[in-house]
């Protein structure tokens, strides 16, 4: 297997300790858990998505673990503005604040709260199961561009996280780029459902949810590959990554770094374990492989 050198990395404006970033919404509601993930070897962490008002999330079940993935419909629970205080212990750490809103103004407002504390913003325009937010914004290129521009006013790096639940993801990627995004994150979860045959109804409280984990890896690689051909800004690969080999594959598709979420279910120390396998003193620079599968 190809191994990478442990280099200090700038992931689209964020000084990260390595290429492995904790994905949004996973262990991301407390400063203490974010800090724990950093200590366990994540190069940077993305917070739970924070919105204009506190939300308590959908009724449960909110998560089911499948054989080869995870399905969730959390419903964007978040403490809203109180999270500014929560982050105060993490000021100089590589923390990317994920935010969402119902329109560009809300994105601008929420970002403003964190303008002092965040190293960067990640815009969640892609959650497939929260009415009025997320994917309902992220399927419209004009809105994506406007939200990106609105947050860009705070002069921080802005990553825009895309939904795969669109006919052509490159249209949305290009809109983010035009809006001034510093990076594209691909992908958020894939809209999905499972039904309990015993109870004769969808298992998630919200009925619909988002699929993540191994099952979506080939979809995520495809999206990153398509975006790499269509856009010129850096791409952060996300979706189903669970080992060092997957990281290499995502990089070859065009990702400069990766985000990892669901894999913590099988291995809470996934960042340390992937890091141990991925990096070696005689490793090569990631630059040598990013996008190399575009032949």
């Amino acid at each position: 297997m190809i191994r990478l050198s442990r280099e200090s990395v700038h992931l689209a404006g964020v000084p990260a300790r390595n290429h492995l970033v904790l994905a949004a919404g996973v262990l991301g509601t407390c400063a203490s858990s974010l800090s724990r993930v950093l200590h366990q070897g994540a190069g940077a962490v993305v917070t739970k998505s924070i919105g204009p008002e506190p939300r308590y999330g959908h009724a449960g079940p909110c998560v089911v673990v499948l054989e080869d993935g995870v399905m969730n419909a959390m419903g964007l629970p978040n403490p809203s503005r109180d999270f500014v205080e929560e982050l105060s212990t993490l000021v100089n750490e590589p923390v990317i604040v994920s935010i969402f809103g119902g329109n560009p103004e809300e994105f601008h407002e929420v970002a403003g709260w964190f303008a002092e504390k965040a190293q960067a913003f990640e815009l969640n325009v892609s959650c497939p199961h929260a009415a009025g937010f997320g994917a309902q914004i992220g399927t419209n290129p004009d809105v994506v561009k406007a939200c990106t521009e609105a947050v860009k006013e705070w002069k921080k790096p802005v990553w825009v996280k895309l939904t795969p639940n669109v006919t052509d993801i490159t249209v949305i990627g290009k809109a983010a780029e035009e809006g001034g995004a510093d990076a594209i994150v691909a992908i958020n979860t894939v809209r999905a459902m499972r039904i309990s045959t015993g109870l004769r109804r969808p298992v998630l409280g919200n009925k619909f949810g988002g699929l993540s984990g191994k099952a979506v890896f080939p979809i995520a690689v495809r999206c990153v590959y398509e975006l790499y051909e269509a856009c010129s800004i850096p791409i952060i690969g996300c979706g189903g990554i669970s080992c060092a080999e997957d990281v290499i594959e995502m990089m070859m598709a065009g990702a400069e770094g990766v985000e990892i979420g669901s894999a913590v279910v099988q291995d809470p120390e996934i960042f340390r374990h992937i890091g141990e396998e991925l990096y070696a003193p005689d490793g090569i620079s990631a630059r040598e492989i990013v996008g190399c599968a575009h032949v």
Partner: protein
Amino acid sequence: MSDGLPVPVTITRVVQESPGVTTIFFDQNFSSNPGQFVMVWVVGTDEIPMALSYPNAVTVQRVGEATSALVTMKPGEKIGIRGPFGNGFTIRGKILAIAGGVGTAPLLRIGLEYPDVTFLLGARTASELIFYSVLSSTCDVRIATDDGSAGYHGYVAGLLDEIDLDEYENIVVCGPDPMMRSVLSVLENRDVLEKSQFSMHRYMKCGVGLCGSCCIDPNGLCVCKDGPVFSGEMLLRSELGKYHRNAAGLKEK
């Protein structure tokens, strides 16, 4: 595809343990360590964490929407079970169990299945004491009520004064946060923290260490996966008894 979807079970028996607490038996056993919990899907309402009081039952205190729906269910109705999850207690030798209110549920099996258990049972008032009779047939049970309507008059932590803690190899505790914090203080003062284990409860959505809603300060451990059972030493400098986070992640006292 077999996977982690909720297992549908049918309720077989509903037993009222006290005015506010009901045990719901179902038609399937789940093998677990005492202290592990399951996520109970109260169909149409919510999914909530519950200790397995028996291999085929949960014991529910009615506090809000989901628990109210659950305690009014009838034999023949179905619920969904995910799990068991979490670590459970490590049990060896002579055991002191300290339970407050519905916190007796995760400790019940210890009282019933292990040979040498002293069980301290606390509640606000006599009618709220649960599992007293079943436990007295297998262990040495001592009682405390806040209002003095039965047993010791005062908090269950007060019962510890009359107990020689050196006799016990393990001290297992479950109850409301303030009760656990006060037990923790007593055990610290009497220098037996290292043999204590506390079963924590925090707001849970996933049960599998993913969503982060159950994480506790200051070390960011997941109550659902790293716990719910933690050593007293670990909890000493924790948020226990000070605050917890609600469903939105907002801190509450």
